[in-house]
């Protein structure tokens, strides 16, 4: 298939950036979206033009590096996957595709489609952990965790920190990301002792980074490649309010 690509090109964080149009020829439907980008980049290099910079690493949907906003959708049109898992069979001959970086004040563009997501790391440092001294742990079966709680914590823990929730939210809110960590740790008995400090610390940092507030539109949930639900945001709200009044 042949495609028309409008790709955001921006030299660095100071540059204002613009869309550049490319024609992708003979794209195979078995290619992943990123492989289609690889082929385009090889052609650009052959022509002496700088290839398009984009973040990617594991290419199997788990590292959370890839961060493409494809035709108005974080990670492209399909649900429950990352851009690297998107295959070209989701497009058809003659399609026009817009490829943009995540857009958020807290995620400044570094180059082309690469953004700086270290805000997430700073939020994690503000409490997204359990203070368990290494070497001091008791037997793993000493505290029982019922199956459903473990599963529910795992649902939240599945977050890959890609930032699609921020990208998809009309307010560029990071609530789904933050709630995933809070919900994961606060449900487990091991995470309970620090739950208040965790909720207060992470939210304060989230606000400081310049993410927007949640208006419960549910776009994050619809775009999350790990299908993390906004019920976790409700739990975060509870945890935060509980921590505030305690």
């Amino acid at each position: 298939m042949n495609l028309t690509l409008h790709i955001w090109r921006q030299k660095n964080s100071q540059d204002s950036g613009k869309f550049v149009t490319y024609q992708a020829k003979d794209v195979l439907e078995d290619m992943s979206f990123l492989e289609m980008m690889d082929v385009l980049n090889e052609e650009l290099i052959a022509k002496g033009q700088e290839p398009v910079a984009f973040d990617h690493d594991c290419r199997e949907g788990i590292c959370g590096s890839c961060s493409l906003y494809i035709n108005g959708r974080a990670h492209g049109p399909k649900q429950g996957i990352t851009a690297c898992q998107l295959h070209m069979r989701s497009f058809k001959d003659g399609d026009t595709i817009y490829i943009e970086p995540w857009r958020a004040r807290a995620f400044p563009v570094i180059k082309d489609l690469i953004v700086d997501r270290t805000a997430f790391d700073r939020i994690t440092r503000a409490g997204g952990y359990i203070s368990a001294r290494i070497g001091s742990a008791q037997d793993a079966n000493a505290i029982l965790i019922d199956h459903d709680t473990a599963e529910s914590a795992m649902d939240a823990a599945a977050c890959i920190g890609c930032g699609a929730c921020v990208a998809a939210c009309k307010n560029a809110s990071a609530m789904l990301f933050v709630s995933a960590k809070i919900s994961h740790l606060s449900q487990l008995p091991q995470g309970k002792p620090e739950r208040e400090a965790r909720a207060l610390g992470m939210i304060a940092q989230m606000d400081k980074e310049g993410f927007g507030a949640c208006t419960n539109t549910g776009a994050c949930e619809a775009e999350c490649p790990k299908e993390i639900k906004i019920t976790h945001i409700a739990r975060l709200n509870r945890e935060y309010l509980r921590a505030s009044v305690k």
Partner: protein
Amino acid sequence: MKLDAKIPAGNLADKWTEHKVHLKLVNPANKRKYHIIVVGTGLAGASASASLGELGYNVSTFCFQDSGRRAHSIAAQGGINAAKNYQNDGDSIFRLFYDTVKGGDFRAREGNVHRLAELSVNIIDQSVALGVPFAREYGGYLDNRSFGGAQVSRTFYARGQTGQQLLLGAYSAMSRQAALGTVKMYERYEMLDLVVIDGIARGIVTRNMITGKIESFTADAVVLATGGYGNVYYLSTNAKGSNATAIWRAHKKGALFANPCFVQIHPTCIPVSGDHQSKLTLMSESLRNDGRVWVPKQKGDTRKPEDVPEEERDYFLERKYPSFGNLVPRDVASRNSKMVCDEGRGVGKSKQAVYLDFRDSIKRLGKAKIEERYGNLFQMYEQITDENPYITPMRIYPAIHYTMGGLWVDYDLMSNVPGLFVLGEANFSDHGANRLGASALMQGLADGYFVIPNTMGGYLGSGGIEKVTIEHPAFKDAEAKVKQQISQLLSINGKHSVDHYHKALGKIMWDRVGMARDAEGLNKAIADIKALREDFWKNVKVLGSGEELNQSLEKAGRVIDFLELGELLAKDALHRNESCGGHFRAEYQTEENEARRDDENFSYAAAWEYTGENNEPVMHKEQLTFENIQLASRSYK
């Protein structure tokens, strides 16, 4: 050079305990005066940063990714082994130790492996304490699954995302230290050289991947936890960014590289679909718990798998290895898959695949149970192939997955360069010639959480480390060389992209240094790699500048190292005139096509010394001694 692994004397089971008692300590108030550099934030690097920071050392941690959480440990799917014996099925530390040494085809050190098995239980405890949501039974107890090469169920798991959960646990512990100020994080920094002064490791030279700035950092000790070199084959299950630059450049600064030819080829990966292929996706070994591997008995059978009747299917692993069946170790499964494909019985368009069929277990357990166990893997498979594995069997084929070889280290995980420690997949120590499934996570975390915090004290506590600054000529010299290499790469402006060379190297490696090797092919590979390397330096085209984010430049630097490492790998494979584990030499096989090990002549680790650009590397032998295990020919029949 005499290699001393410094394995403590005494009983196998007491070595580690005894050793810890005798290790030097650093006074708590003095720890913060020591600066330790950790490169890499996977399981080994993140857990090492966390534990060293927690002890009070002043730690700087570097990763090339935009966040420590993205290191490739995140992609490990199936699980982590631990000798907890929660299943009451006869497991013990000794059995895990035995399985690991046997699984590694008797090419690993007894002392290291036993320590690993001992620490395995602490890892599970520690990870649970850090909030890792392992799978639980309804009673609230931890659940287990089985993995290859073992007849007990000792693998702990968190769905198909065990590596992710363990890494996030270690990352969160590291983040806590970063918040406390004991660990300073450097993201999007790539280590480009190791600085050695007076024979000891004193720091690194890095490139800031956003600004391009070349910077030096001094340290009292350097810890490399930068993973394996599987991407020397271009196509592998590794992440695109996984590279050997840190260990290779340390090798060129004097660190010995051990057993580079021990490369693991994982049997269950999604087959290559075309020339555009950029990486291979693993389907967890845990699938072999319930999936049955088969090909049609007839050559060139083009029927749909569903239409092949039971009596015309060859469940070749179950047939040849009745006691382990589909759960034979990875090297055995891979080699057998290749054999049936070579016989012309491969399936799919390319005929380079075998079936992994869940029909019978879906019939036995129901679709819901299979979905609970492997749902995300099935989904992943369907995304890539557009086929539904609940209905039609998966097509799988072996792919490069893990590298058992790596920088040589002693029992303390220190390389032959004092002050340079190497952890996790980056070292060579624990898996011999083949790693068992679910043991990589175990090793990374054992090294980082429990070994390095002890042995680091042993090194630093011995004293004798003078202060240095980045003004030292060794730093200036290393910086100048790094800069010179970058400007050289940017100035060639030849005909071919970096990927062109990487793919070409990958093809040589896979065809001649892959699943089956022979002297003729290896000699040819060595010559071809040399020629390719020369061509690279004449004709590579790297656009852009060095003072900005430049992904082509980053790749170019890594590919140069692969072009050198590939040659050493082939040379190591050529010198090892035996078949063992992942290293299969066609000349050395039994009549039943099984690997034929030569314990008399090759029961050693081959540690290679770099001797200069056009000089032959020099091999040093570390003889392996087995006092607790009887060397035997590995049988899974």
